[in-house]
């Protein structure tokens, strides 16, 4: 049987082995009782013509083949219960798997040939009105800047209570503020960032309202939109939660 094969024509060692197996007309599982190992090794003379990466792939396989061959010459060690996969079996399995995907690739090619007569149009070109600048989600920096504005609008606290003796229970919690925001969003389609803080007077309430807002963003209950950079941020309902009894918030 005289035929010439060259390493360069093959897409890696598995491709070459599969070709040799097909040429020899043997079954994949009979690879080690055939001449294939010798044929493969004789082709390794051409390794110099390949680049280093490809050559090393072919060489690794050559080493595996020689290893399997040398094992077959030695008496088999007694089998251990949890032994690694036999290198011979492993190679046969890999070859079978590779062959399967090679054939699947050919099937895909047939499918694409069937689509070759199908064409589609390019999108229509027509002048659209100037695109509105819309940030689907306002950036964290802008959200922070807007919040600082709200805080600064309040008059500076003129006097610090002289003697702070009593510590009140938290008047405002994320949970209570969440309920308020949700109710507000249910009333109208959207609310601006500033409107949300209009009714609030105490600094703590503002802060907790802001925390609640962050929670709602994280839970995808609301969408923030900002039509222009540094413009008004509007808040719209997205996936409002009805019941959050089992949710845990950061201040709890």
């Amino acid at each position, binding site marked *: 049987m005289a035929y010439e094969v060259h390493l360069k024509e093959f*897409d*890696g*060692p*598995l*491709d070459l082995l599969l070709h040799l197996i097909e040429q020899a007309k043997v*079954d994949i599982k009979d690879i080690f009782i055939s001449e294939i190992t010798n044929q493969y090794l004789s082709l390794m003379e051409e390794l110099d013509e390949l680049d280093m*990466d*490809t050559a090393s*792939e072919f060489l690794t*396989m050559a080493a595996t083949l020689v290893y399997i061959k040398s094992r077959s010459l030695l008496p088999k060690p007694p089998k251990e219960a949890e032994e690694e996969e036999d290198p011979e079996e492993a190679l046969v399995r*890999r070859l079978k*798997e*590779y*062959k*399967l*995907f*090679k*054939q*699947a*690739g*050919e*099937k*895909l*090619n047939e*499918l*694409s*040939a*069937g*689509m*070759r*007569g*199908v*064409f*589609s*149009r*390019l*999108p*229509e070109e027509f002048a659209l009105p100037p695109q509105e600048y819309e940030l689907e989600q306002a950036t964290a920096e802008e959200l922070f800047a807007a919040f600082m504005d709200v805080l600064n609008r309040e008059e500076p606290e003129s006097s610090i209570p002289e003697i702070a003796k009593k510590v009140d229970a938290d008047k405002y919690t994320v949970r209570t503020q969440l309920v308020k925001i949700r109710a507000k969003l249910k009333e109208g389609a959207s609310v601006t960032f500033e409107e949300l803080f209009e009714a609030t007077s105490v600094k703590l309430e503002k802060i907790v309202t802001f925390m609640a807002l962050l929670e709602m963003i994280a839970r995808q209950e609301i969408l923030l939109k900002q039509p222009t950079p540094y413009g008004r941020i509007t808040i719209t309902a997205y996936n409002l939660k009805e019941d959050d009894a089992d949710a845990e918030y950061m201040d709890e």
Partner: protein
Amino acid sequence: MEYNERMGAIECILFVSGDPVPIIELQRAIGVTDIEMEHIIRSMDELYKREKRGIQLFITAETMQLVSNKEYTRYVEELVQPVQSKSFSQSMLETLSVIAYRQPVTKADIEAVRGVRCEYAVGQLMKLGMIRELGRKNVVGRPMLLGTTDAFLRHFGIRSLSELPQLSEIENAETEENDNTEDKASD
């Protein structure tokens, strides 16, 4: 909007767009429910096929597009020579088949099957929009998990991944061939 008008509106959007349009966007634009949308699409598809129209619908799980009817390609070619898309190289096809059947997969998974590096093939397939990153695998190095795209389905003319030729059938066809039986796996 009447039923016919809804079909008309969808056809009109698809014509203007040219590119595939996400079905949920269409649904939002004409304002119908999921079930209604599904029904409209199915009747449109049947109508176009029944009337052997020159324009057909190509529908995948996510998108819809107007495409030419391949039955008439030879007549088109009498007058114009549309640019044929190039076919894939062997290594690209093999890489793509591993991704298509095994997704989500990492490059290492592909290399394990093919025994060769796959950077180039993966890069090319990415560039052609056939595959995309689905996420990262939670192992050392957080390798990219690859999967096929909607463009992949359209290129190969299938509507969903379930329409890919079954691997078990490919395997069986092989053994039957060896046994010289005539019984071929149906396509």
